[in-house]
């Protein structure tokens, strides 16, 4: 009980509450502007969190992401432009409601579904994370090696559209992680004589560049037609009756989102599509889906925010990211000296519970702030990309500069931004590269030290039952796509 009290004290500190409120406002604004995503918002927030204590830093990321994912429904519903990929599953239903003259109903349902789903996801996180952590406290460096590899494999193979492109991205990240002075032998590697590169590539400018610069370039060149936003009636009117009628969709969406989100590499986008498909299958009127029906909107809307919360389960317990946002969070946790993994639950449980409480608070804030942003949506949607894209670029520059107080960070951001843009153009996922940069050092260290301990005997990696089980899972993740590809090739050949 003492730990919960300490966590509650931490989360109710003015600095934490202020960080949650400011990040929520920022997230809800960014998410409501078409073209700006939750991942980009989180990437831009990181330089500011660099100057914060761990709890407000992580709480602000959680708040920004929760708000931005909900706010992504606003351009989706009003303009048929999903603000974030997670809103795409039910954009047709929301837009059809707008065309029918009921945009406030669609947005109101999205807002309440997001809040309920988010709270369910946080409850899943609060229950599952400590239980899993207790099981994982006996892990040694070998298990940590497999966990790191499992996280990287999930991001590269499961989450990516093409497994091979995911692996290329991951290997690029792992190579970047080797740049600088080698931790084992003290040898400078791939520094090309640069003193700045001796310290390695800074994770934050690289991440800002890869996630934000491609979006800046896209928005800068976008030609936005003149937008006519509809007028809206009272947002909360009639919501209670609809939600009482659709409570099953609401709870099922939250449950499905919590389950899918907790799978490494899945994330809110997949959760929303899965929940939408389930809602359609279980509906008495599946033919109404996509034409302004509320079941899919409620279920998928609850699922995406639930997934956002539960994606933190593998992140906090094992250091395996649930999605792109938690891939960034892992980097921030390392920066703050909070190495994700079961030990964090033993060493500083009050910090973990404070983060969980902050998550709960952010999801509850969705109702008042969501209501406010829906009222303001007409003005936000009118901001042309020509005006906000250069401002975002300036944020990228100052954020990258702030990490080392030199222009080296800015140039790193630019170089990685160009790489990120080339990756996006060729549908090479970015998250595996970022994870490779973050986890590469740890992976190499655990691998090399284990090899040194065993004098080169690879059997050490399967010498303990849990390590062997993890090795088997990693092997399956790597082998199954190869077998599937070979089978489909055999089918194609006459």
């Amino acid at each position: 009980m003492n730990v919960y009290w300490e966590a509650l004290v931490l989360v109710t500190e003015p600095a934490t509450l202020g960080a949650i409120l400011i990040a929520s406002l920022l997230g809800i604004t960014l998410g409501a502007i078409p073209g700006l995503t939750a991942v980009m918002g989180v990437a831009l927030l990181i330089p500011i969190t660099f100057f914060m204590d761990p709890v407000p830093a992580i709480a602000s990321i959680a708040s920004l992401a929760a708000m931005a994912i909900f706010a992504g429904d606003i351009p989706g519903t009003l303009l048929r432009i999903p603000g974030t990929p997670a809103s795409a599953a039910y954009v047709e239903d929301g837009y059809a409601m707008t065309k029918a003259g009921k945009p406030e109903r669609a947005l109101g349902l999205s807002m309440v579904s997001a809040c309920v789903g988010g709270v369910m996801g946080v409850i899943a996180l609060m229950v599952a994370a400590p239980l899993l952590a207790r099981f994982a406290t006996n892990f040694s460096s070998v298990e940590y090696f497999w966990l790191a590899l499992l996280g990287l494999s999930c991001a590269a193979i499961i989450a990516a559209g093409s497994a091979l492109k995911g692996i290329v991205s991951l290997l690029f990240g792992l190579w970047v992680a080797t740049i600088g002075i080698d931790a084992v032998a003290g040898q400078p590697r791939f520094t090309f004589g640069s003193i700045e590169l001796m310290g390695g590539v800074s994770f934050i400018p690289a991440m800002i560049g890869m996630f934000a610069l491609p979006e800046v370039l896209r928005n800068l060149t976008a030609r936005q037609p003149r937008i006519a936003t509809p007028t809206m009636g009272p947002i909360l009117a009639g919501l209670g009756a609809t939600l009482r009628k659709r409570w099953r969709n609401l709870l099922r969406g939250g449950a499905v989102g919590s389950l899918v989100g907790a799978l490494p590499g899945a994330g809110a986008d997949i959760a929303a599509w899965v929940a939408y498909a389930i809602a359609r299958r279980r509906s008495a009127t599946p033919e109404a889906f996509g034409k302004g029906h509320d079941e899919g909107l409620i279920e998928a809307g609850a699922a995406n925010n639930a997934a956002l919360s539960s994606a933190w389960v593998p992140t906090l317990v094992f250091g395996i990211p649930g999605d792109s946002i938690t891939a960034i969070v892992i980097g921030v946790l390392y920066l703050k000296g909070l190495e994700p993994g079961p030990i964090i639950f033993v060493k500083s449980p009050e910090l973990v519970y404070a983060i969980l409480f902050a998550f709960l608070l952010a999801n509850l804030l969705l109702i008042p702030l969501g209501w406010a942003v829906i009222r303001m949506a007409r003005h936000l949607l009118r901001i042309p990309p020509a005006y906000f894209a250069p401002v975002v670029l300036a944020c990228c520059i100052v954020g990258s500069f702030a990490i080392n107080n030199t222009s080296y960070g800015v140039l790193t951001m630019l170089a990685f931004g160009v790489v990120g843009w080339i990756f996006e153009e060729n549908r090479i996922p970015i998250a595996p590269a970022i994870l490779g940069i973050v986890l590469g050092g740890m992976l190499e260290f655990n691998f090399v030290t284990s090899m040194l301990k065993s004098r080169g005997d690879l059997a050490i990696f399967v010498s303990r039952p849990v390590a062997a089980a993890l090795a088997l899972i990693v092997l399956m993740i790597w082998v199954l796509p190869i077998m599937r590809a070979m089978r489909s090739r055999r089918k194609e050949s006459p």
Partner: protein
Amino acid sequence: MQLNDRLIGALAICGGVAIIVGTLGFRELPGQQFGSAFFPRIVGTALILTGAAMLAMRADGPWLRLPALLRGAAKWQVAAALASVIGWVVVSPYLGFIATTTLMIWILILVAGGRLVPAALTALVMACLLYLVFGILLRVPLPFGAIERFLT
């Protein structure tokens, strides 16, 4: 720039070879079985194998295709955005943060099709806001110029 999957595979192989060649100069520590080159060589080899697998896959479409972003007026906007970052690095130590950032945002909004006066106002307000957050509240030593000297 959109590349054919086989070309990406070929580039991955080149990258893998370059990494392995890059490790050849790493000095070996006496008695150390697994030195600095060990892990990068694994990464390089994995890149070569992945590239080879991509080469073996079927890939449709041309080897190289320019995306919409690099055609017409858009290519100048992209070039302006990238050049503005380098320009900021070069100019900001002389002009200071506020002037350089205002100028950068203003020019980019105009290049992207914005109007002269609203663009100037947006640029000035946002540059001052960023200076307030990073320069004053977070105490980041942003490039100092005449305006900053006047403000302090």
